[in-house]
């Protein structure tokens, strides 16, 4: 452990997806992430926004230990990442629940992987489900749930093994605007009440500003950090906040930087 322990520490992160084949049908090398430096302090909620294909998900996968970056270092709680870690919970755009398991057992999946499921695990999951508005749905199968409910289950699953770091890759990307807003408010509450550190990948500007203590803006591919915006709001975020001029102002700033990043590289 280092003395100044960051939740996440990215230094000079670069990743190139190797091409395949030769001649006309060849797939060229793609540099997804050029040079990303980023630290996330314990208890923060950091969103990473950027144009499509700027390597946002690549950054998240590097933190999750799902891919080995071409260059640079990734540290989580001061330790170099060599593979998936037990103290990381992850939720992806697709809820990816296992259809043959009910809600409770879907949530217990990560717990099972690391040992026997204890009563306290069940209690913790029950508490999470209750907080996510899923009390009473413990023994339902995924096909009986709406898209929004499935995503809530996926987030509860991410938190089930009591991880210190929560990674979210556009978990609400496929939901309608109204459901998404409600989920954001709920996620903010879960984050406050559990005291986790969270990293969210999104292309929703309002979503990023609403949820985050810091918003990291990436450039077009290959991604680098162009700016970090700090929304000056208390940790508790509400629907009312979204209607304020301050909120609109911060969103506008993020939007301007995003478009600048977009045009800057293309032109």
């Amino acid at each position: 452990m280092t003395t100044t322990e960051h939740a996440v520490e990215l230094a000079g992160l670069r990743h190139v997806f190797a091409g395949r084949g030769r001649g006309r049908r060849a797939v060229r090398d793609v540099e997804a992430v050029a040079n990303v430096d980023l630290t996330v302090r314990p208890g923060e909620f950091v969103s990473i926004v950027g144009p499509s294909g700027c390597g946002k998900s690549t950054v998240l996968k590097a933190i999750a230990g799902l891919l080995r970056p071409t260059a640079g270092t990734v540290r989580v709680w001061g330790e170099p990442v060599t593979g998936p870690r037990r103290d990381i919970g992850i939720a992806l755009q697709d809820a990816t629940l296992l259809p043959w398991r009910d809600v409770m057992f879907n949530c217990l999946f990560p717990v099972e992987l690391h040992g026997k499921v204890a009563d306290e695990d069940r209690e913790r999951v029950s508490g999470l489900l209750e907080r996510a508005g899923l009390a009473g749905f413990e023994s339902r199968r995924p096909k009986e749930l709406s898209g929004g409910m499935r995503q809530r289950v996926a987030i509860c699953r991410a938190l089930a093994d009591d991880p210190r770091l929560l990674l979210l890759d556009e978990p609400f990307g496929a939901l309608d605007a109204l459901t998404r807003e409600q989920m954001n408010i709920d996620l903010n509450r879960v984050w406050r009440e559990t005291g986790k550190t969270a990293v969210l990948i999104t292309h929703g500007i309002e979503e990023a500003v609403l949820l985050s203590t810091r918003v990291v803006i990436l450039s077009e591919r290959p991604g680098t950090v162009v700016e970090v915006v700090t929304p000056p709001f208390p940790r508790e975020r509400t629907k009312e906040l979204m209607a304020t001029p301050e909120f609109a102002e911060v969103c506008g700033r993020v939007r301007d930087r995003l478009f600048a990043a977009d045009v800057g590289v293309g032109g």
Partner: protein
Amino acid sequence: MTVPPARARAGTAAGWGGLVVVTAVLLAAWQIVPSGVQGDGSSVPKLDATLKALGPSGEWGEYLKALRVTLGEAFLGLLIGLVAGVVLGVLLGESKILRQGVYPYAVALQALPPIALAPIFVIWFGFGMTSKIGLVGAATLFPILVSTMAGVAETDRNRIEMATAFGASRAQIRMRVVFPGLVAPIFSGLEISVVLSFLAAIAGELISANAGVGVILQVYQRDFRLAEEFAVLLILVAVGLALASLVRVARHFVMERMPDE
């Protein structure tokens, strides 16, 4: 999982009305046409003669004895085909080298109609049930093998990535993500194979056997007792439909009550 929406909709659209009308027309034609054509109804038995052969005065002792033999062969053969198909399907799904090496042989075996294999199986395993069981096993293996193999190979990448992200080992992914996902494809294969099992057992009996549905069909044919022959065919239709729905019910039961682990 559930019935595919397209099939469910087609079933609703057809409804029962059309089926009732067509059945009535068929039954009427069955009664009238044979007498019109041949008078004595010797080569196509009239409806009432067939119904009589299906009634209490029919040879139910013979029918049931034959059915017991045939169903026994079909069941035991299907069991062999199921176990071998699932085991091979998992192996071929997991290993690319095995798939490249063994799958072409499985396809080649499948190209042989079971009835063409029957004489060899009789030479190898005798006139009794064993040769028919072997034949059924060979015929039912392929659909189960193919659907199991596809199930392994087409496991949702997202599921595997999700499990990997939570730190699952390869063995854990296999036991907790891949294998439970095979129940649905195995049942799809089983739905095809259960029909094939019946077909292969009777095909084998028609070639050479000492008991079974294939045998009594030949006996009735030889004795020109066509009403009984038609009665047996109708029983076969009923049994075939019952077996297919049995598999569907079993599938539903297993999918709904699968233990949550």
